[in-house]
């Protein structure tokens, strides 16, 4: 069931070809590129309910992308991009991953001027290759978002998204129960607001609610076993650990501060707190704090 290495190389070629196909469009669009480096600490990587089952770790992600920006009309803009990100963990190195990503956004302004409300449709896709093969997957997320700028300093937006993660590997451990642990699907509702007190500083806050599949890693347990729709061994966190796919609702809140180094780059710090209520009474909390540097040309 494990995807051969040559298939991964083939997908890389596909992304490269997609990107190369966008190059001839340069004549009609504007190329852009960006890079980012992010350090984060996650206090509950296993999404476990019991304190004893929680595993925390810090991670470092770095990557870049390039794309094209098109202006088909006064009110419409389109951007497409492709990129790659690599993530390394300090302790749980089985979670190290490389992602090939593609993204497309269509945005329509409903009027003239910076304060005109807008709507946007965004599609993100990625091909994620983990050191631990059970997590190898392809992801797709479709987001519909609307927003408006209330002034030069305030802006708000909100929307819905549908995410789907397709596991490339399935290793069943229980007959009759799927081993495709990372075949997950979910729907989200979110709102965010930004306030820039100065030209350099931006405060950002967001709230999100997601209903969908979550994967928690714990030792064997009857109640979580009965509530799971997929089960697989999860050696990334230890030989006696199993991943359980459950249906749950996650509500999360994020606050962030962004400081513009110049008009092309910024450093951001962000804190996210998430609370999940899943089947079988599995409730867990997760906090992530991160610092990042982002560049966009």
């Amino acid at each position, binding site marked *: 069931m494990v995807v051969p290495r040559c298939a991964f190389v083939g997908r890389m070629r596909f992304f490269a070809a997609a990107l190369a196909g966008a190059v001839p469009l340069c004549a009609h669009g504007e190329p852009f590129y960006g890079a980012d480096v992010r350090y984060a600490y996650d206090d509950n990587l296993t999404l476990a309910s019991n304190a004893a089952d929680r595993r925390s770790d810090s991670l470092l992600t770095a990557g870049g992308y390039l794309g094209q920006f098109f202006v088909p009309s006064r009110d419409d803009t389109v951007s497409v991009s492709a990129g790659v990100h690599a993530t390394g963990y300090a302790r749980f190195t089985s979670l190290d991953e490389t992602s090939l990503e593609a993204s497309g956004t269509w945005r329509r302004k409903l009027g003239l*001027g910076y304060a005109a409300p807008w709507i946007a449709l965004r599609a993100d896709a990625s091909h994620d290759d983990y050191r631990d093969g059970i997590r190898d997957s392809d992801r797709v997320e479709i987001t519909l978002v609307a927003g408006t700028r209330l002034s030069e*300093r305030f802006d708000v937006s909100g929307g819905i998204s549908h995410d789907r993660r397709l596991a490339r590997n399935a290793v069943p451990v229980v007959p009759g129960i799927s081993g495709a642990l990372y075949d997950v699907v979910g729907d989200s509702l979110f709102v965010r607001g930004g306030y820039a007190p100065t030209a350099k500083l931006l405060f950002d806050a967001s709230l999100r609610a997601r209903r969908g599949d979550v994967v928690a890693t714990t030792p064997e347990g009857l109640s979580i076993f009965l509530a799971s729709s997929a089960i697989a061994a999860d050696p990334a966190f230890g030989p006696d650990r199993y991943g359980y796919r459950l249906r749950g609702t996650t509500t999360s809140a994020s606050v962030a501060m962004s400081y513009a180094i110049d008009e092309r780059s910024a450093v951001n710090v962000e804190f996210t707190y998430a609370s999940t209520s899943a089947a079988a009474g599995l409730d867990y909390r997760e906090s992530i704090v991160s610092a990042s540097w982002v560049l966009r040309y």
Partner: protein
Amino acid sequence: MHRSLLFVFLVLAPAVALAQAPSTIRATVVDAQSHPVADAVVVAVSTDPSVNANGHPRAESLDQIDKEFVPKVKPVFVGSTVAFPNRDNVRHHVYSFSPAKRFELPLYAGMPAQPVLFDKPGVVVLGCNIHDWMIGYIYVSESPFYAKTDARGRATIADLPARTFIVRVWHPQMTGSEADTRREVKLAPGEHADITFALALAPEERVRRAPGVEHGSHY
């Protein structure tokens, strides 16, 4: 007879030349902390309307370079036209909602077909509907005598006739009104008058261009 004429010429010529020698106003604009203020427009309006009427509208230009208006502040004499050449690879859609001039240049690359006539004094705030952070200002002066401060906060209005002028200053971030900065300056022939304005400035109100925070789902 010839000697008399030569005497009169030698005596009067310098006096006539001095009477016609142009005068200059050298303005310095600083903020509340005495730091120099760039991009301030200093305008001198003669109390003699006929002097102001001697100005000639011109064909001006304001570029878009790297998705910014360059220069950010452009003073022009009323009746002048301004072209908006787009030097970027991406199209721009320039507009203004300002009462002094409402206009829209539909999405274009390169040079738009027609320049825009600015026939009413006032401040015209420019924007681009594609790049919300782009902001520029055209100051339409009712007087032909104006200048913009450089990075040292200095501006020189030269070739002024010997008259009385009302001098005032405008800046995009000034908190007070332009009218409150009015000063009366009486210029003698060939005089160089120095004048300093201290402005209270607010932080720049502008849509941020730098990248912000990207939120995504976490699943």
